[in-house]
């Protein structure tokens, strides 16, 4: 009976991380929005301003973490949604691989950009 | 054809328990049921399971109470077996995970119940039957017992010796409701019938739509006698539109019954000057009906049960589920209106005659549960005594069918030298098979064949008795196919629903709580009419997929047979005992009636006879006493 499900995959970790990142995102996202639309008007953003913020190591780290958390949360969400819709077998493996590559690329690119912004 | 060692027909509490027992005893078991097991009517039981579990209580007290409750029509060996086995079997349910209500110290709770000298009703909330049914089914799943659900069992494959005591049961014939296939099931060791009650013989019943007495009718036509069929318990508080049961708890908490004139009739009309609404079930039921018959019923149909004065808080605390029942099934809010109630058929004390091991007089044929009559309930069943009966006698039947030695039974079955024939009662009409017309008509009638024998006319015409198991089974399958074809082929005639309604009305009008000679005779006449109309029955639905029209048509035939035995029993037993009341003789007549009524089907005719009650127990004899509480 239980053996019907041969692929033993405890989904608990991903599920938990999705919640943890969500909780984290609430805070940073609110901060991010506030900072860039209300405190500093988006239209007034200049490279200099960005650099000034990015030079602060705390801010830099927060933003990178924000990116990692957001990427994981978003990509994992997308993946779950597809699996729920019945994605299975090879297709599923391919999608997972594509998503992982995209995430890694996104995070790498984002971090690179942030480093560049900080001017290091 | 399918083949198993033991075949259990019906998957309510009794059937499931029998299957588990047979499996434990090493047999290859199959359950065949017209409903998926968890749909069985055992799930509706609320109150609890009687078992002497606690210190201070013991099985002898339970046996004594049961015998007294039965109005001394229970057989002592059966009653004592029930009381002795119930504790262990109840504990076994607990070990299987049944969620019984608990005491502070973590032990199972027991509560007082009507007619018991000790609080020994073990319960799981107000849904004991539901839990019992599910726990038993879980055991069946655990053991991997084969279940054929939504297979309607049509007939028993029984050899056709003249004397029923010499017949053998070799299996069953069932109809796959999903596909319309008719198949034989061979039983190497035994067939256990556990098909539940016959409540649908009445118009107004707390029983499910599936309670159509199929097992009764099959066993009856195969030659096993039906015992004490006249003893039907009516519950005084059921909802008029559906028959849903309103627990005795409402009256226990102080609910009051009123008639249409707003009178508290239990007192004002002197039905029970001491206990009023709390008088025993039969007394209250008779009072309600008298009110209605004398024109003081609400809408000429029911009376009011009022609990508003108990106050919202108390009602919500103790009777909350009653509020839901009244709201869901009657559209009445019990907090602001009185609830309509009337007596409803509730339980059949009688059934297929069996001994303590569940065996009928036919070799290899067993019965257990409400369809059987080991005779533990006699003339009247105590609340909470049916569920232990299911597990105790279900288990015994399963064991015995699987070949386990349970010792020699003390109860005798079948027609034998210890019985007394019925001689004096005059019948208004000829009961039994109707219109022995053409072979087709008779096949449509589903039971008797043209020459009155058990097997089909074709088999008989070549002169021989079919004796070997496979032959008997094949023949029965063939008969069933002919039967179904003939029902399906007809395009005009009467529909079963009409006949069923007429039958149910006849029973509720004349064989209800009140029984008079004249009334019961009227009922027999009407039943006869139903039988004759049934000759013209046809099935409108041409489909072989899930044809419930066909299934119900066959059930209706069974109801006719069962209703007839109830009415016959009610006619011959001219006394007032337990739930059976007769206008002509309103006292218990121990001199003439300490005996069971037995009715068997012989050559298409009911044969009525009697067997004395066994009052000698293991150690003591139960002396009939006045039944007062």
């Amino acid at each position: 009976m239980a053996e019907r499900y041969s692929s033993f995959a405890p989904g608990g970790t991903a599920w938990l991380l999705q919640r943890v990142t969500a909780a984290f995102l609430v805070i940073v996202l609110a901060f991010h929005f506030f900072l860039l639309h209300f405190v500093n008007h988006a239209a007034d953003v200049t490279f200099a301003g960005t650099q000034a913020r990015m030079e602060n190591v705390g801010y830099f780290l927060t933003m990178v973490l924000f990116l990692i958390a957001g990427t994981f949360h978003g990509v994992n969400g997308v993946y779950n949604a597809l699996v729920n819709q019945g994605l299975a077998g090879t297709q599923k493996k391919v999608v997972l691989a594509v998503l992982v590559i995209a995430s890694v690329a996104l995070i790498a690119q984002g971090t690179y950009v942030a480093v560049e912004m900080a001017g290091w | 054809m399918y083949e198993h060692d033991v075949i259990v027909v019906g998957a309510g509490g009794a059937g499931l328990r029998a299957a588990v027992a047979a499996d434990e005893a090493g047999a290859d078991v199959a359950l065949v049921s017209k409903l998926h097991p968890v749909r069985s009517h055992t799930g509706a039981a609320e109150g609890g399971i009687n078992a002497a579990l606690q210190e201070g209580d013991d099985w002898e007290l339970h046996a004594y109470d049961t015998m007294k409750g039965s109005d001394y029509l229970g057989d002592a060996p059966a009653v004592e077996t029930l009381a002795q086995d119930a504790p262990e079997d109840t504990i076994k349910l607990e070990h299987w995970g049944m969620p019984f209500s608990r005491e502070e110290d973590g032990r199972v709770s027991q509560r007082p119940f009507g007619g018991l000298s000790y609080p020994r009703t073990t319960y799981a909330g107000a849904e004991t039957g539901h839990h019992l049914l599910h726990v038993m089914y879980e055991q069946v799943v655990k053991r991997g017992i084969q279940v054929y659900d939504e297979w309607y069992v049509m007939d028993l494959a029984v050899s056709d010796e003249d004397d029923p005591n010499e017949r053998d049961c070799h299996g069953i014939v069932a109809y796959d409701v999903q596909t319309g296939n008719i198949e034989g099931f061979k039983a190497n060791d035994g067939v256990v019938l556990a098909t539940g009650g016959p409540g649908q013989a009445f118009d107004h019943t707390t029983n499910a739509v599936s309670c159509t007495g199929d097992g009764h009718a099959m066993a009856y036509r195969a030659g096993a006698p039906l015992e004490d069929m006249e003893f039907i318990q009516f519950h005084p508080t059921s909802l008029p539109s559906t028959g849903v049961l309103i627990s005795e708890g409402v009256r226990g908490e102080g609910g009051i019954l009123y008639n249409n004139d707003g009178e508290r009739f239990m007192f004002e009309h002197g039905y029970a000057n001491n206990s009023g609404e709390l008088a025993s079930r039969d007394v209250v039921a008779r009072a309600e009906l008298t009110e209605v018959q004398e024109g003081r019923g609400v809408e000429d149909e029911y009376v009011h049960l009022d609990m508003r004065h108990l106050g919202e808080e108390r009602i919500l605390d103790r009777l909350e589920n009653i509020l839901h029942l009244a709201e869901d099934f009657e559209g009445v809010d019990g907090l602001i209106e009185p609830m309509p109630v009337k007596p409803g058929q509730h339980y059949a004390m009688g059934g297929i005659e069996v001994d303590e091991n569940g065996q009928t007089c036919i070799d290899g044929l067993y019965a257990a549960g409400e369809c059987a009559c080991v005779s533990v309930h006699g003339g009247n069943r105590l609340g909470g005594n049916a569920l232990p009966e299911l597990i105790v006698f279900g288990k015994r039947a399963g064991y015995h069918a699987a070949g386990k030695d349970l010792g020699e039974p003390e109860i005798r079955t079948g027609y034998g030298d210890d019985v007394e024939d019925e001689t004096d009662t005059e019948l208004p009409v000829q009961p039994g098979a109707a219109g022995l017309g053409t072979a087709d008509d008779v096949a449509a009638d589903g039971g008797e064949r043209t020459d009155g024998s058990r097997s089909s006319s074709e088999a008989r015409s070549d002169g021989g008795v079919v004796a070997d198991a496979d032959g008997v089974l094949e023949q029965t399958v063939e008969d069933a196919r002919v039967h179904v074809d003939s029902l399906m082929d007809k395009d005009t005639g009467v529909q079963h629903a009409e006949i069923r309604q007429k039958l149910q009305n006849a029973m509720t009008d004349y064989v209800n709580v009140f029984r008079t000679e004249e009334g019961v005779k009227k009922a027999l006449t009407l039943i006869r009419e139903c039988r004759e109309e049934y000759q013209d029955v046809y099935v409108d639905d041409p489909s072989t997929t899930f044809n419930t029209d066909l299934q119900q048509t066959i059930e209706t035939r069974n109801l006719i047979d069962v209703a007839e035995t109830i009415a016959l029993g009610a006619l011959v037993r001219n006394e007032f005992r337990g739930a059976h009341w007769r206008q002509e003789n309103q006292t218990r007549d121990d001199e003439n009636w300490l005996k069971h009524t037995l009715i068997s089907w012989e050559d298409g005719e009911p044969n009525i006879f009697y067997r004395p009650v066994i009052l000698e127990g293991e150690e003591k004899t139960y002396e009939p006493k006045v039944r007062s509480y």
Partner: protein
Amino acid sequence: MSTQQPEQPESQEAPKDPEMRGAESPVDEKEKEDGEIDQTTADKSELEGETVLIKVFRYDPEVEGKQEPRFDDFHVPFSKGMTVLDAVMYARDHYDSSLTFRHSCRQAVCGSDAFFVNGKQRLGCKTQMADLEHPVRIEPLPHQEVVKDLVVDMDHFYDQMHTVEPYFQNEETPDSSDLEEQRQTRENREKVKMSTRCIWCGACMSSCNIAAGDNEYLGPAAINKAYRFAMDNREPEDVKEHRLRILEQEHGVWRCQTQFSCTEVCPKDIPLTEHIQELKREAVKKNLKFW
């Protein structure tokens, strides 16, 4: 039967609507009926003596004219306390004996008659006609294949129920001949109480979008069944872990997206979503232990 009753349902002959959009059956007819019968929840007393219109899904693979699903109209005389089940039974017994549906207890314990009534999964016997908008549309449970009329194939539901090993597992019970039970606290019984009420009607499973999309998803009823055992202290710890492992499978608890429709339709008011969520947390807790 009143003389105003049509002997046969009006739409007997032709498959009205091949698209099966039964609710939108021919417009003019619908409007006419709207006028006749109070649209909103009808006042109970107002309905007295009236007839109510039910529109019932019909399908039979073998019968011509029913192979393509259609809706039949039945006018049923209303009486106080009438349930949806009473109405279909009346229609079957008086107008069309081939109208097919499962039913048995008439009191919400056998779980046979879960239908899709006016767009919601409900038990026929537990739903008052007077509480519904009229006309009343009755269909078989969605997300399951239709065998005939209102009868759906329940096999898949049963399979899922059986997958969670729905039986008590404790090899160490006391000897039953000593009449000794396993002890259980009242609190623990209270904890599992609601979960033990399930009557296997399948309404929850039918209402769940996830179960519809993923056939292997255990579904709310089976998870609830597992909850019933996992939370019962009479079962030893290792059995509980075993149960959680079953629930953690790919198609187990994680699939639930907390849509709550199961909880909303359950006729036994079992807090299904809550139970599923609790099991997710239990599983996470168990996994954290290994870190």
